């Protein structure tokens, strides 16, 4: 049993998922499913966190490590995904009940989706990547379609599903080509063959292109981001929250593992010849497009969707710096995704909090004057957007600092990427501030319905937790930095 400690968070989730499925099937009373689910996710996170903090990763049998890495990086993502999912579940506990469509399968789905994401995050074999990806995606498709009577929800789900499957097929085709080119399906083996130059170059390059595309799609990088705003808007807000943190984190993880793990040799990475310039370019257009398009939104939810596209761009900046500064860049990406998880939960959670039954807050107008009437409820929103915007002393600032620091250290063209990045985030300031403007500086129009904050212990707890960590990771980031560094070291020595 101790041999399975390394993957215990995974097992825990599976067990919890199965248990809840059973419970849900046999009871009508599902009042506390949210807390049970959340607790199990947090326990999983705590398990992973303890191992991560102690630095001792329990050894695992080869049969597992062949497909799923048991290392610091995996644990780091376990924590991020579980925490993201757990907080989303708590939000759901408040949100779904308030709006009256709470059903047990939601929690099961989110558990299995999180499971898939965690599998994906530690996948070190093309097969496990595919399986993790599909597990996660199928859960996510279903979650988006959760509110199945809503036209927006099902339309979002359809689009997400069609495009997601299309991208998955591309990724899969790339995987198969890679297998053909190297004769391996495990990333380590592939990496060795590629680095040695023994792989079939043509197939490798084609595979690389397809893998980048497939993973960039999951990450939501422009121009593979088109599903993001629609799916995010269509899904119920807790699901949007989870997608923007958990799924994105998993995508980052696998991107790191594939690009750095399998294609980490100078020739494939090369600043002038390999994937680095591609990522750099993706980063630039993602940051610019995400921020500019977010500017034009009237719906806060959709704005946050575009903003999450923009944040994918910042993450890619860190990734593009790996070529030059290695683990520093990797850890910057890790820190960023962790900081982003809390910030985003805080922002989405606040948006949830600002509405109540029949008066859900979605657009800016819904927020007008709410801050003046309910300053306590609006306060976390302010912290949230400021963190997303990257104002000190919040986690978001530190994350951004870290990523751009990596870019600047990488030097050369990366400095200009950083410059574009900061300018784009200055554009971002506008729409984030708009939230504060509407909350505190505007009054609702005459005949406009006024948003009334919901009263929910679940949401409150979520916001307190997320807000606490947003501030804590901004003021005393050392511990989390250390975790990110040690996690990064398991990928790049």
């Amino acid at each position, binding site marked *: 049993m101790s041999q399975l400690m390394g993957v215990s968070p995974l097992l825990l989730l599976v067990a919890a998922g199965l248990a809840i499925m059973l419970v849900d099937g046999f009871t009508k009373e599902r009042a506390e499913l949210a807390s049970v689910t959340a607790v199990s996710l947090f326990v999983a996170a705590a398990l992973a966190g303890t191992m991560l903090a102690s630095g001792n990763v329990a050894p695992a049998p080869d049969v597992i490590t062949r497909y799923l890495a048991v290392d610091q990086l995996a644990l780091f993502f376990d924590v991020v995904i579980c925490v993201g999912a757990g907080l989303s579940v708590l939000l759901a506990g408040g949100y779904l009940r308030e709006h009256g469509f709470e059903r047990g399968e939601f929690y099961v789905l989110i558990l299995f989706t999180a499971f898939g994401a965690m599998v994906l995050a530690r996948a070190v074999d093309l097969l496990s990547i595919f399986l993790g990806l599909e597990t996660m995606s199928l859960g996510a498709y279903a979650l988006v379609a959760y509110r199945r009577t809503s036209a927006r929800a099902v339309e979002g789900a359809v689009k997400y599903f*069609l495009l997601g499957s299309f991208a998955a097929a591309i990724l899969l085709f790339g995987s198969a080509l890679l297998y053909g080119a190297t004769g391996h399906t495990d990333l380590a083996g592939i990496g060795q063959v590629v680095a040695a130059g023994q792989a079939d*170059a043509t197939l490798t390059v084609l595979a690389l*292109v397809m893998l980048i595309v497939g993973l960039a799609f999951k990450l939501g990088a422009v121009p593979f981001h088109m599903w993001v705003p629609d799916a995010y808007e269509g899904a119920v807000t807790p699901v949007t929250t989870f997608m923007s943190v958990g799924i994105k984190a998993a995508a980052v993880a696998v991107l790191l593992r594939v690009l750095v793990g399998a294609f980490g040799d100078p020739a494939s990475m*090369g600043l002038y010849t390999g994937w680095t310039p*591609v990522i750099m370019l993706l980063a630039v257009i993602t940051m610019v497009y995400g921020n*500019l*398009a977010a500017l034009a939104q009237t719906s806060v939810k959709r704005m946050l969707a575009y903003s999450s596209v923009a944040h994918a761009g910042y993450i890619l900046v860190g990734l593009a710096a790996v070529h030059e500064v290695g683990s520093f860049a990797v850890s910057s990406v890790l820190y960023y995704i962790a900081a982003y998880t809390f910030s985003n939960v805080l922002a989405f959670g606040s948006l949830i909090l600002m509405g109540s039954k029949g008066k859900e807050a979605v657009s800016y107008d819904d927020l007008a004057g709410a801050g003046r009437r309910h300053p306590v409820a609006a306060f976390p929103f302010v912290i949230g957007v400021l963190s997303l915007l990257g104002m000190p002393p919040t986690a978001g600032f530190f994350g951004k600092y870290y990523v751009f620091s990596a870019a600047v250290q990488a030097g050369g063209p990366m400095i200009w990427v950083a410059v574009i990045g900061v300018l784009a985030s200055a*554009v971002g300031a*506008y729409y984030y501030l708009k939230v504060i403007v509407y909350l505190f500086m505007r009054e609702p129009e005459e005949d406009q319905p006024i948003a009334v904050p919901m009263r929910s212990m679940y949401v409150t707890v979520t916001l307190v937790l997320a807000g606490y960590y947003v501030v804590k990771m901004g003021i005393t980031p050392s511990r989390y930095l250390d975790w990110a560094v040690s996690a990064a070291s398991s990928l790049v020595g």
Partner: protein
Amino acid sequence: MHVEAPQQILLLLIILFPLGGAIINGLLGRYMAKGLVTLVGVGSVALSFALAVVSFVELYGLRHESETATLVYHFYEWFSLKLPSGNVVAVNVRFVMDSLSGVMTLIVTGVGGLIHLYSIGYMGDDEGYPRFMSFLNLFMASMLILVLGSSMPVMFVGWEGVGLCSYLLIGFWFENRDYAAAGRKAFVVNRIGDFGVLIGMFILVGVAGSFEFADINSAAMAGEFRPDFPVWLLGVAPSLATVACVFLFLGCTGKSAQIPLYIWLPDAMAGPTPVSALIHAATMVTAGVYLCCRLSPLFITSDVAMSIIAVTGTLTALLAASIAVVQREMKKILAYSTVSQLGFMFAAVGVGAFAAGFFHVFTHAFFKACLFLGAGSVMHAVHAHGDADIFKLGGLRKALPITRLTFLASCLAIAGFPLTSGFFSKDEILLGAAAQIFRPDDMLMTSVGWFTLIGLTLAAVMTAFYMFRLYFLTFTGEYRSADQSGDHPYDAHPHESPPAMTIPLVVLAVGALTVGFLGLPHVVPIIGTHLSDYSWWGHWMEASVAGQPVPEQMYIVNLASGLAFGAMAIGISAAWVLYRNKSTDALAEKMPARLYQLAFDKWRVDELYAATIVNPIKNVAVVAGRADMTFVDAVMTKLPSFNVREAGRILARLQNGVVHVYGAVVVVGVVAVLAWFWTPHSRIEAAFEGTRVELTTPQGLGYEYRWDANSDGEFETQWKGTPGTTFEYGHDDMRGIAVFLKNTHSGIEHRIDVTDEWMPLPIESVVPAEFLSPRDTGFEVRIDGEFLLFRKAHARTKLSGMKEIRLPMGKSGRLGPARVSSRPLVEATLEVRNAFGNTRRATKEIALPFGFEAPTHASLTRPAHEVVR
């Protein structure tokens, strides 16, 4: 050697009393009884006067011990400046009473005290009386700081302080917005002058290394101001002294109402009459003359500046007098008269007769204060507000006997009637001007002397004329408001003013008649006797004021006196004929109407300024104000933000909701990513090791490489998977020679490909112009065997006497502020092939950091197109 008396603290108290009075009356006056206000206001000045007298006596006594005795009070260090030389110049709050400032202090406190006294009667009923007293006291304090301050900045405190008081007092009746505007005009115009004083001050401290007048003057006497001003102005190189003096004089023209900045003074008559008497006649406006006298050793260093001052003073005297001749209002006439008299003083300064100029300051204080106060008395009597139209007056000698007599005395003095004070002072001025004419071998000075002498004489004629025109129209004939006809007639029954007003009048009139004897000249005209060994005034002033020597030749003395007397006589006679017992403006009827109108409109100078200076500036300001929120804000804010917002809107539109489009965009992305990998990429980098060159390029996935290191068309290496190669270049590989010019300052580098033809070397492309001396420009370069030859391109470029410089190939050297080096150029070619079989060729020119042995002529001239590509 300075002899210092023990009770210097008096100097401070002289200032502090009025200052304290100002503060008390200013803050609490509103709540105090009128009597108390008076006590504080007048009492403080009286005390100050008493202390001034005590100090002056002290100083007088000390003069017997030492010629240069001064009283000094060092208060505290204000702040300090550090000069580029590293010396720290302390700016001390320090007061000095020497012969010049001693006299001025007496004038200020004495005349000031009388005017305070007068104000009790004149302003006693005004509801702003405490405020008035407070301002007046504040003025006294400022003026005393100006006078007693031992250094430029401290003087400047008073200088601006009196300007402030002037502003406050002109606009004393602030409910009349025109008055307040006149005050503002005075302040702003004075500020223009202050601009000059500030700049002048900086030049002084830059050269003399001190702000103290004493140090500046000794530096001036040591000739430190003789060198040329380091910045060329309009293509000429004036001396430091000239520039400094011109700037300082600009300040004087503001404070002392000279062309071009005199325009504020006539408007300043909006203030209550005591203010006009004290500030705008007796004391403040003479501050400019005082400053010139203070710095007389400096001014006298610069003939150019002196000439400018003399000419300006003369022109002002003439211009103002010509305006005064036709004005109809008492105070306006007196105002222009003041401007004109100030012109006299500056003319005196300009011809080097500083003591005479200052003597005129002294006498002028008496008669002009008396005249203004007399005018005030008249206005008080007839209940005229603001100003009194002399054509509505007349015959007041009966009603106002004391006023009339004192007024007459002052008129005589200002006209220069023999043995009155004005006679002596004006005579001295003309004497100074005349002396300039006869200065040997100096065309500039001679012509300035002629101009000044003639101009001042004319002005003196007009002075006598308009003063007596004023006198006759006011006091002789019949009282024209008696029958209450005409517009706005004055009170039908004028009465003499109370004693508080008449006493000062009498005192001042007596002074106006008698103080001239202090300046009893050394040589008496016509008679030619030496009355005494020296003129008392001249001797007294000698210690602190420089100047041209007073001439003793009889012909000069007689010429000056004759002119002065003649001018007076002509002026008074003309006025007698035209205006005595008359009620109409006889001159106006005789003059051409348009000329009269023009003179009456003050030659329309205000309008000219408005049209040429004020309005253009104001228009620019309006444009700037509008442009800021439209143009500048648009360019800096609105346009960028609009662009960003629109870009966002358009980009968001791409997201049109249709799945196919989404899918298509994904495919586009795939194609784009693939496109990057479709063709190989390379980037040649060269590293040097000895004479071997290591050529590398980044490795790529599945890339193969082959090199043609010397670009001769033959590949040295076969296709291989490793990117690098090494190569040793020889003569035959050389493509040319490049000369690199590098600015060691900025790191900017410029490359020139050289041949064996002369080519210009654009040194200015790397070295900012400010670091180039003219000789650095215009180099040419060419190759000569194994050397580079540099030579000057133009005759003016000198290279340490050498015609040409040789620089061995591959070595580097300095050319002015730029570093030059030469490098042989070679070209490397690389072909890369990637997994898709696509190839790409890259070439790079490499400048080798080492030279070859003498390159052959042929290899250098091989044309580029012969190279096989």
